[in-house]
């Protein structure tokens, strides 16, 4: 039995400290997926909280034999993100991207002046901007593989698609991301 499954068992046994450990251990992953997908700290915080509320209510539906806890949690987060994406699609169509673009270009120009390979926090911000322009299918695949480092098999379970589809989406997502970054004068 792996550490996560043991933790879940303790939670279901009614141990308060185990629930707290579950939040502390897994909140980073959930927040990171939400933040990379939405591109907004506030939205990511609200969604992370919503994910955990669902975890508290539905942890008993997790079965260790049907995949790891990470897959179960990632699937729950992903489903909530897709619901959120569909709900807010209209709002995004009316504003946002055009407003964000000049700001992003200004930031890029500033970074380009400093020369060399962009890394750390600056790279994270540029990546954030570029990810938002990917389609949700490509974005979620890239996030789960390259940022959350899930196995292809696990991503296929989370997204409920064949492994071949995961790999194909990943190739397209990575290539598209490189093109978007290059368009912003970032060397990749």
């Amino acid at each position, binding site marked *: 039995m792996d550490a996560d499954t043991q933790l879940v068992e303790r*939670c*279901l*046994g*009614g141990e*308060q400290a185990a*629930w*707290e450990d579950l*939040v*502390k251990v897994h*909140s*980073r992953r959930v*927040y*990171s997926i939400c*933040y*990379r997908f939405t591109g907004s*700290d506030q939205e990511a*915080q609200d969604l*992370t*909280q919503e994910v*955990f*509320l669902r975890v*508290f*209510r539905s942890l*008993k539906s997790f*079965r260790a034999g049907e995949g790891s806890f990470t897959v179960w949690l990632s699937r729950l987060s992903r489903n909530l993100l897709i619901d959120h994406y569909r709900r807010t699609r209209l709002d995004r169509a009316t504003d946002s991207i055009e407003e964000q673009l000049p700001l992003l270009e200004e930031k890029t120009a500033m970074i380009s002046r400093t020369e060399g*390979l*962009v*890394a*750390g*926090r600056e*790279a*994270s911000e*540029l*990546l954030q901007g570029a990810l938002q322009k990917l389609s949700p299918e490509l974005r979620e695949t*890239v996030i789960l*593989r*390259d*940022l959350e480092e899930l196995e*292809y098999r696990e991503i296929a379970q989370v997204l409920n698609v064949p492994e*071949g589809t*995961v*790999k*194909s989406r*990943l*190739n397209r997502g*990575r*290539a598209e*991301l*490189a*093109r978007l*970054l290059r368009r912003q004068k*970032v060397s*990749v």
Partner: protein
Amino acid sequence: MTCQELEILLADYVDGTIRGEEKSAIESHLAGCVLCAALARDAAGAVAFMDRAADVEVPQELVTRILFELTDGPSRAAIRPSAARRIFGPLFQPWIDRILQPRFSMSLAMTILSFAMLGRFAGINVRQLKPSDLDPVKVYAAAEDRIQRAWARSVKYYENLRVVFEIQTQLNEWSQQDASPNPADQNKQQKK
């Protein structure tokens, strides 16, 4: 190797998990195909860029908010263990979990159904349960009746035991008092 074949293997190639002949086949294809080479270059570049990007840190106030929700918010009730767990405790929990799995529940249901059908064909008549049987007053009255009967039966059994014991003790006393026991007298006493 075709471009479609390469597309399937490209993700693993960029991750660096492909070795040997497969790797050289990919590289010879990339050397001759401009489109695939560009795709591979872009994918590898994006992966390297993401490696350089800083990890996302979770805001501490968010963790505190979720923990507060857990200890003092409405979720406090949601994380209480189920009634089955509270009653039977960790001793029987693995069994309960196993039995409650869909496949076992289905097997259990099918077994009950099979026995019900067998009973029907064998001519065993089980009285149908009517909605009126589920009336709480009726259920309570029936339970009380059964308890009363069981209690009365146990009391009677105990009383009978006491009487038998008393008779036996009395008989023993008489037989000891009588130095030369007469079989005819003993029979008389037993008949009494």
